């Protein structure tokens, strides 16, 4: 496949690993690199990159899987809407996210109706076909997904659909990076920045952050060579003592990002505080509908509150998401908690850190 195979060449990978070994040998202390994005986590696990790296280079998975940071209370609200006869429409990986008591999969097994969408446009089609059914699109995700999800509102307005709304739990990546970098218990030396979130926010968005926290930020694509080259870039910066933003995914990410997508998002949404499962409230890290569009907010339309939910106290997803522990250091990993029977959200989505560790090898480090 064009623009895929060139970035998976094993000879180049071998050369890159040699270069990484050389750079690593010159380090005076171990380096912690956080890959923020769930798709990076999955690619790293699938290609065995973590195991191929020298022992003094630690790849730590971050909080960038939208499913994993979705609050139990949000799932409770979605199930509550379902019980009221409103039809939740959602990406498939939301089904098994545990709420306080139930999940959308359980609600469905009990006879409730939940529609799975490949694209938010499927929710629009559903609403057009069934004008007497209220459809709610479960709008979760980072900047990459926000545009497509908000398009549901845009279509709802343009097509004058009275039966389509969204339940929002959007997240923004920069405030999360700030929160992680200000936490004294976490030591991250560098960020491997997400590929497609960066396509929206732009490489320049990381500049003030990299300067303020003196942390090298390297934007890399999702293919194995992208990731290895990203690690080389990071190690070179650490060696040189610099902390700049390096855009290695320039085939997709522009300095200014996707301006059109951002202005589309800004038309409908404004920054708000957001609750991150296992982490807590991160100020200004979410996006909610502007007041003039509150009719399209399912929480307002159907008077449902998204409250703090309960979750299994034994689940350590919060610590996993912050990179404080590895999944295999959680006592429930792979025995009580499995992808078939997830206790916490990190085990649900294929992009979840616990699920990636489970699927692609458990003996790590």
């Amino acid at each position, binding site marked *: 496949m064009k623009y895929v195979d060139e970035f998976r060449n094993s000879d180049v990978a071998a*050369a890159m690993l040699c270069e990484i070994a050389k750079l690593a040998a010159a380090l005076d202390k171990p380096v912690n690199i956080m890959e923020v994005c769930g798709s990076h986590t999955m690619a790293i696990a699938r290609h065995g990159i973590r195991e191929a790296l020298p022992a003094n280079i630690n790849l730590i998975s971050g909080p960038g899987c939208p499913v994993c940071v979705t609050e139990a209370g949000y799932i409770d609200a979605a199930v509550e809407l379902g019980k009221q006869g409103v039809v939740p429409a959602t990406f498939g990986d939301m089904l098994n996210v545990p709420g306080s008591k139930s999940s959308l999969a359980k609600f469905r097994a009990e006879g409730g109706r939940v529609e799975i969408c490949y694209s*938010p446009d499927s929710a629009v089609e559903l609403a057009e076909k069934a004008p007497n059914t209220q459809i709610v699109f479960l709008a979760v995700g980072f900047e990459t*997904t926000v545009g497509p999800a908000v398009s549901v509102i845009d279509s709802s307005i343009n097509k004058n659909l009275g039966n389509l709304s969204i339940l929002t739990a959007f997240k923004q990546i920069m405030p999360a990076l700030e929160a992680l970098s200000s936490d004294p218990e976490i030591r991250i030396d560098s960020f491997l920045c997400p590929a497609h979130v960066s396509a929206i926010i732009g490489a320049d968005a990381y500049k003030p952050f990299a300067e303020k926290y003196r942390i090298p930020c390297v934007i890399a694509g999702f293919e194995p060579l992208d990731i290895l080259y990203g690690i080389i870039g990071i190690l070179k910066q650490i060696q040189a003592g610099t902390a700049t933003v390096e855009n290695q995914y*320039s*085939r997709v990410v522009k300095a200014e990002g996707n301006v059109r997508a951002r202005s589309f998002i800004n038309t409908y949404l404004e920054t708000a505080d957001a609750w991150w499962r296992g982490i807590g409230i991160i100020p200004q890290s979410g996006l909610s509908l502007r007041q003039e569009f509150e009719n399209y907010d399912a929480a307002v339309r159907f008077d449902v509150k998204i409250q703090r939910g309960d979750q299994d106290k034994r689940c350590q997803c919060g610590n996993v998401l912050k990179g404080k522990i590895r999944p295999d250091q959680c006592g429930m990993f792979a025995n009580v908690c499995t992808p078939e029977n997830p206790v916490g959200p990190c085990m649900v989505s294929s992009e979840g850190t616990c699920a990636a560790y489970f699927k692609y090898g458990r003996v790590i480090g």
Partner: protein
Amino acid sequence: MCLAVPMKIIEINENRTGIAESGGVSRKVNLKLLDDCAVGDYVIIHAGFAIEKLNEEQAAKSVALFDELVQVMSGTQVQSR
């Protein structure tokens, strides 16, 4: 959710939708979030929406950079032998 392989636009229809193809698989794509695009462009698709165009010149630059690295590395290996 974010699985994104670049796909080639093979058809553009009215109301900013189109068809994209990769490895023999074609898929409907919403082009609302792009300023402009043409048949033959490669795009990154996320949740059914093209979120950005792929810059073919920049892709070639990355590949050239990788080749250079392989040459440098094989050079150092020869020297150290």
